[in-house]
């Protein structure tokens, strides 16, 4: 197993307090790049941190590229994870090959980190189709838009795996705002009652579009919700990829070992507006956003790696180049117009087309034929 757990926390019937999170989020590397020993969690090894760093560099580049593509009109919308890349990368790295990820619209970087090609991951946001990858290929569910709904899918998915005796772990992502939805509650509860191998990973980025955390909860922390389901909850610095790897890794290990679900809350920050369509100056101060740049997940890990002689300028340049290649491929893919077939509207609704759908397709086909294959150019 990749991640070792120095002191395994096990839910105990006699002392429910072990289910409570710490008062302060777990942090292994501070914002100056200095590592601190922690009694509960070991610092991940150099190899893993190196892979994480590459993920961060690539993730940041993908976020930047996607924003550019929105400005150029090649993407309809992009909910950026800028500032949250540590969460994105850790969510992917802690999973084994056969594990599954259940991401949201904001988690494109995590999806890509699992192996989905950036172009396929962007199909939804480009508008070509509702999802652009076969979930089975990289074991990534379609990115969910209706908030918190995917958490239940993750739970059912894990239940099916266990039904077949597989040791799949499922990691399900959501935001702070999503914890207010009824489906969040039901997912946590089903997972706990059936003791399923699910890691609930909340990226608390302080906002749900414009609504601040204080309007979502009065709880000491979101992780304090865990005890109400009988599962352990933990808080972690969401900009410290080392801590994320340790805390999420422990939760994955516990899940795989039959220890049931865990709720992990990462404290991070949404550095950009909700999406390009949003205007965040309406509801937050520039200064507040600025304050978070110092906590940037990249610079912090870079600081640590450089100080430990695990990263030099040459390696850094190689990483930047690799990220650039990914960005270029994404640009190219999105600059090409997909060849869209109107019959696709009807092709996938049911496994076999009903007479009604067939009739409607024929109606559209006739219409397109009458107007010359291109609808827009239609002249009566």
């Amino acid at each position, binding site marked *: 197993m990749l991640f070792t757990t120095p002191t395994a926390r096990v839910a105990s019937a006699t002392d429910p307090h072990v289910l409570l999170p710490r008062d302060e989020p777990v942090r292994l590397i501070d914002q100056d790049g200095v590592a601190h020993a922690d009694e509960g969690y070991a610092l991940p090894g150099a190899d893993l941190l190196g892979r994480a760093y590459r993920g961060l560099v690539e993730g940041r580049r993908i976020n930047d590229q996607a924003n550019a593509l929105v400005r150029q009109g090649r993407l309809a919308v992009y909910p950026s994870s800028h500032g949250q890349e540590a969460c994105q990368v850790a969510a992917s790295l802690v999973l084994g090959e056969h594990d599954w990820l259940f991401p949201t619209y904001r988690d494109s970087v995590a999806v890509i980190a699992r192996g989905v090609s950036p172009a396929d991951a962007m199909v939804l946001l480009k508008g070509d*189709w*509702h*999802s652009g990858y*076969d*979930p*089975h290929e990289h074991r990534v*569910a*379609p990115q969910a838009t*209706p908030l918190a*709904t995917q*958490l*239940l*899918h*993750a*739970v*059912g*998915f*894990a*239940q*099916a*795996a266990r*039904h*077949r005796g597989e040791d799949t772990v499922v990691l399900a992502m959501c935001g702070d705002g999503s914890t207010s939805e*009824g*489906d969040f*509650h*039901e*997912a946590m*509860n*089903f997972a706990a*009652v059936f003791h399923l191998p699910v890691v609930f990973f909340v990226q608390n980025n302080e906002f749900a579009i414009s609504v601040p955390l204080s309007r979502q909860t009065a709880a000491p922390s979101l992780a304090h919700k865990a005890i109400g389901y009988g599962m352990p909850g933990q808080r972690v610095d969401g900009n410290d990829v080392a801590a994320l790897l340790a805390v999420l890794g422990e939760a994955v290990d516990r899940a795989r070992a039959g220890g049931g679900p865990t709720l992990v809350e990462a404290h991070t920050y949404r550095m950009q507006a909700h999406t390009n369509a949003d205007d965040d100056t309406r509801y937050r101060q520039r200064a507040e956003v600025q304050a978070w740049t110092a906590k940037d997940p990249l610079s912090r890990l870079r600081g640590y790696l450089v100080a430990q002689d695990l990263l030099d300028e040459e390696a850094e340049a190689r990483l930047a180049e690799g990220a650039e290649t990914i960005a270029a491929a994404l640009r190219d893919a999105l600059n090409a117009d997909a060849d869209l077939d109107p019959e*696709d509207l009807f*092709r*996938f*609704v*049911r*496994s*076999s*087309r*009903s*007479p*009604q*759908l*067939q009739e409607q397709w024929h109606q559209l086909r006739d219409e397109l034929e009458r107007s010359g294959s291109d609808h827009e150019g239609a002249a009566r």
Partner: protein
Amino acid sequence: MTLMHDVAPAPAPTTQTMTMAAALNRALADAIETDPDVLVFGEDVGALGGVFRITDGLTERYGEERCFDTPLAESGIVGTAVGMAMNGLRPVIEMQFDAFALPAFEQVVSHVAKMGNRTRGAMRLPIVIRIPTGGGIGGVEHHCDSSEAYYAHTPGLTVVCPSTPQDAYSLLRAAIASPDPVIFLEPKKLYWSKGEVDTSVVAEIGSARIVREGSDVTLISYGSSVATCLEAAEIAAVEGRSVQVVDVRSLSPIDDATITAAVRATGRAVVVAEAPGYASVASEIQSRVFERCFEYLEAPVRKVTGFDTPFASPKFEHWYLPDADRVLDAIDSLHWLDENAGEA
């Protein structure tokens, strides 16, 4: 195109008289026995066997692995079923009463109905959502609604509703075998009605059935209203009118071919259903018949439905529910005199 799916033969096929409840129970058991991916769950479906006893004995016979109780949360039940289906299982879930399926409506509309389309067929969801439907049992508020319109209007859902024990068995087996999600509506009023069930009969989802032949007028109906139509047809026969009765069975997709041919032959039609009539499945059938049979109609197509009021309290139910009298009144209104006048 066919909606006939490979239904595994019943383990020990029999022909027997049984209630619709027993037929449904048998269909579940046969599905569990013949397909290891079939899982039954919901509220009170385990030890209790469901409040209507449709899952009676399943946990005892097949274990908690195959039939189990969940926490009390309908969105949770449907949402986890979605996840299980994404991972290769065939969940068959029970909603306790129609109105109590509503907390799951987002999961049904936004995921159950759309996942196959979203993933370009890569992830189909073979889920069956069983929902006891309708009134006629003297249930208090929230226990007697008919919610088929909500589901039938939603693209991506198959919606079926049996009116006989045989169809209950065969349609449920077909629904479970379907690669697509099916809303399976069970008329509560018919749970204890009896009929012969041959478990070797395989149903095709999407086909209507002519329940009674007749040449003067066609009654189009489904679920518990089919019996109302048959009762009306009997009375009408005494009065000298030959009434045809069609059981739609599959509310979506719908069998236009059978319905259209039927009405074209009689020239008159009444659609009968228990749900409130406004923007309903009955309206849809009515407008389809109008459009497809326009030239053949001797009179406007009528519909007899529940009123556009919340479902009645038990003591008001007899005023609310469409009955044979109301169907006969509608038949009476179908311009018979005009026709006679025309013929004279």
